[in-house]
């Protein structure tokens, strides 16, 4: 394989991406991440402290509680996306394949629309819909004469995280739909014709034809879900603010990072501890990505 490509051509392919990526992303990140191994003395000087910041994250009574809480919440957030968003997304993509292009385009576009909205709008409208004062309650009362008030789903510690996870699923379901659909329509047209001609059942076709062919894409969607969710920040930030209430029940690693690094209200930022949070996030995500790459590697060799 190496004989076919000249070194010059390889540099041409990889060069531009490497340049921009290294200069405007990697260098700034490394410059900041390395702060996680230091502490700030007197505004300017950085004092090397090894793993002290990580020790704080894991063991300090105040920090560790917040850190583990955020990690646990993030896990739940991810599981909701993985096991609700993705299966439904795959199902929708499958349904779309059987339709005419015009119909498929219409449905696809409709499902993608929430993904194109800014978080501000998504946050505002769902807070309104779910509000016991203005939202569903008023409809239930007007239409069904139900006098019971719906619980404040976004306001109760027990339901806030689940509710916001579902709002996020609503917003981003277009992504698995689009990716799986793109993969499905790349399948050889002859095979798809054969399924139609032989009148293969929906589920049989799914398990024996569609699934094996889009399995790599499903793996891709899964790893993207994992990476995006453990890096998630904007929706919680917009709806609940950096304090991610009620009582930190919606706190994710992303909001914890923001609060720790940049500070909040009267709390000043701690760039060293914040960098440590970011490093922890990086490592957590790295584990998942490594598993994915290993899995993909095995498939290539197969």
């Amino acid at each position, binding site marked *: 394989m190496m004989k076919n490509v000249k070194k010059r051509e390889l540099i041409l392919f990889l060069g531009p991406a490497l340049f921009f990526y290294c200069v405007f992303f990697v260098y700034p990140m490394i410059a900041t991440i390395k702060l996680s191994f230091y502490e700030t003395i007197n*505004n300017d000087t950085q004092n090397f402290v090894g793993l002290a910041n990580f020790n704080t994250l894991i063991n300090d009574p105040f920090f560790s509680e917040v850190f583990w809480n955020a990690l646990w919440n993030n896990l739940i957030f991810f599981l909701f996306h993985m096991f609700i968003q993705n299966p439904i997304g795959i199902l929708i993509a499958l349904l779309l394949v059987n339709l005419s292009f015009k119909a498929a385009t219409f449905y696809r576009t409709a499902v993608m629309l929430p993904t194109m909205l800014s978080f501000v709008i998504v946050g505002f409208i769902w807070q309104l819909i779910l509000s016991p004062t203005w939202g569903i309650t008023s409809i239930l009362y007007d239409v069904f004469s139900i006098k019971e008030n719906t619980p404040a*789903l976004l*306001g109760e510690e027990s339901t806030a995280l689940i509710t916001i996870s579902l709002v996020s699923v609503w917003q981003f379901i277009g992504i698995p739909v689009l990716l799986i659909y793109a993969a499905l329509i790349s399948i050889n047209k002859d095979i798809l014709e054969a399924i139609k001609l032989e009148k293969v059942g929906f589920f049989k076709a799914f398990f024996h034809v569609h699934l094996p062919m889009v399995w790599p894409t499903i793996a891709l969607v899964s790893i993207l879900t994992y990476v995006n969710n453990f890096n998630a920040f904007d929706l919680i930030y917009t709806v609940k603010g950096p304090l991610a209430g009620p*009582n930190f029940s919606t706190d994710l690693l992303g909001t914890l990072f*923001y609060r720790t690094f940049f500070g*909040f209200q009267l709390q000043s930022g701690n760039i060293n501890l914040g960098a440590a949070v970011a490093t922890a996030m990086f490592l957590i995500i790295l584990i998942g990505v490594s598993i994915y790459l290993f899995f993909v590697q095995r498939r290539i060799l197969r």
Partner: protein
Amino acid sequence: MKRLGLILLAVVGLGASYWSVQKPSTNESNSAKSELIIESWRSDDLAAWNEKILPVFNAQNPNINVVFRPSPATEYNAALNTKLAGGTAGDLITCRPFDASLKLFNEGNLLALNDIAGLKHYSNFAKTAWQTDDLKTTFCIPLASVIHGFIYNQNIFKSLSLQKPKTVDDFYKALDVVSSKGGITPIALGTADQWEAATMGFHNIGVNYWQGEKGRLGLISGKEKLSDKAYVETFTQLEKWAPFMGNGYKAQTYTQSQALFTSGKAAIYPAGSWDIASFNGKVEFEMSAFAPPLPTGQSECFISDHTDIGLGINAKSGKLEAAKKFIEWLTTAEFAQIYANNLPGFFPLSNHEIKIEDPLANEFLSWRQHCKSSIRNSYHILSRGTPNLENEIWNTSAQVLNKSMSPKEAAQQLQKGLDNWYRPN
């Protein structure tokens, strides 16, 4: 061919964005003029500054053009600190009171302002929020303070024959009357955003329980503890509000609380004086306000009269002379007059005699005559460590209102947090 087209498009695109570097923006076209940028979190004040306040200064100083450029409030701290570190911050910085700005000064980001002549127009009380601990250096000019109280719907009160509550008993009696009428939420307050629970709840009524400055200074000196009776009592009062806050208060945001009140669906709105601007012109009923109700048996009253906003100079600005000129103007009576009347509810901290036109603002201001003023107790010194006292007050106040934490637990959590790092001298 297509590839060529693509590359051509990319080159054109990059060229276009580079060209936008070369083209000067209209503000910088006159090289003789110094343009000063004001950094702020008050997007609400954009029109007032750029249309009413700054034109007056800019007209008097043809060589200077001051522009008010606020950042979104939620991003202000992060954005400002990042811009200061990266060297792209504006020339004039809106200062939060006490430690947030003290930190900026200690980092060398704010200029010392001891040579500003107009400083003599401010009381020591006003200046403390923007001075070093030894009180020797001032690093921001005090702009305005905000007062806390309760705004209420006069029409509803009149229809129920209710008077302005003076004591806590009056307060709950009024709430009971509104509640039994039905259809109207007695108190428009939510806990979703958490800060109102602290600011319009805890800090608002608490001053009456910890006796204003006495309590605040007691906490700093260590004579008082947050687990003391006064603070537990404050939380106890907050807990009592919960049944009067309507059904959905746990998910009610600040905007929604405002909407509830302005739509006439709520009777009382725990407020900061800035809310006057939120409500003026938006309500179709008469509004008035009352000071925090007096605890039973207490005759001395206190109000939260909080030094809220200051303005300082970015020490690394290249236009220090022009900036100082602007700061001097901020100390004049002319500025105080324009500011107070365009931003009702923000009370200028300078000593000049000014005439405030807004009746609701004057109502708030009148309380200064018979009640003692005090600033919010968490802002000075007590929020320097982790956990941050102010953030803890947000969390505990919201939880007490949500009834997921008892007043005693809340008070103890506050003290525990403080004990983690604070050592009174």
